[in-house]
């Protein structure tokens, strides 16, 4: 798991390794973080998930070794 921008600040994490249940989706991984960091729930609608450095649907199943992030709205430029 990687954390960026306001999500990084909110969770107080830049990066960590996690174990997920077999066949868990990105949505389910997010839910488990929302339990740990209740404020995260309010941001769900504004976040986009990524898996292995590519935007990914929340229904995507994660597998071992995947690099996952919940990306806040981008504001480069």
């Amino acid at each position, binding site marked *: 798991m990687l954390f960026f921008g306001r999500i990084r600040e909110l969770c107080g994490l830049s990066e960590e390794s996690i174990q997920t249940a077999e066949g868990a989706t990105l949505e389910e991984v997010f839910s488990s973080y929302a339990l740990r960091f209740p404020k995260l729930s309010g941001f769900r609608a504004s976040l986009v998930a990524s898996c292995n450095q590519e935007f990914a649907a929340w229904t995507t199943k994660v597998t071992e070794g995947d690099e996952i992030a919940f990306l806040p*709205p981008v504001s*480069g*430029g």
Partner: protein
Amino acid sequence: MAKAIEEDKFELVQQPIDAAALIRLVRADLDGAMVTFDGFVRKESHGRQTSYLEYESYAPMALQKMSEIGHLMHQKFAIDRVAIVHRLGRLEIGETSVFIAVSAPHRGPAFDACRFAIDTLKKTVPIWKKEYFADGAVWADGELPPAPPSQKTAS
């Protein structure tokens, strides 16, 4: 025209962007037109005086997205070379955060491709900006990237 991709440049840098060097890289004698976009730190944001900005990125994904923008530019427009460089870290007022240069035989595609590059970068490249004011700091609102496909794609 898609042949020039190996001469294109996509970079994230911590130090000031050297626009003159990028211009030399992109400007080729077989062209006749070059358009550049220089995005730099404004003195004011939402009516408040900016102190400085901080940019952070998901670097490997950001670079991949920038290079995808370059590929799309060559597909969509009759252009020659492209450079897209974004700076990260702390930026003072007036400093360039993003510089884009596009060369082409004719001006129309150079303008269209340069505009496409910055518009797309602002929507799809994972970079985030925090604005620091005298009395606090906020993350810029930003834009939601387009909805991804509903299934995981091979990548």
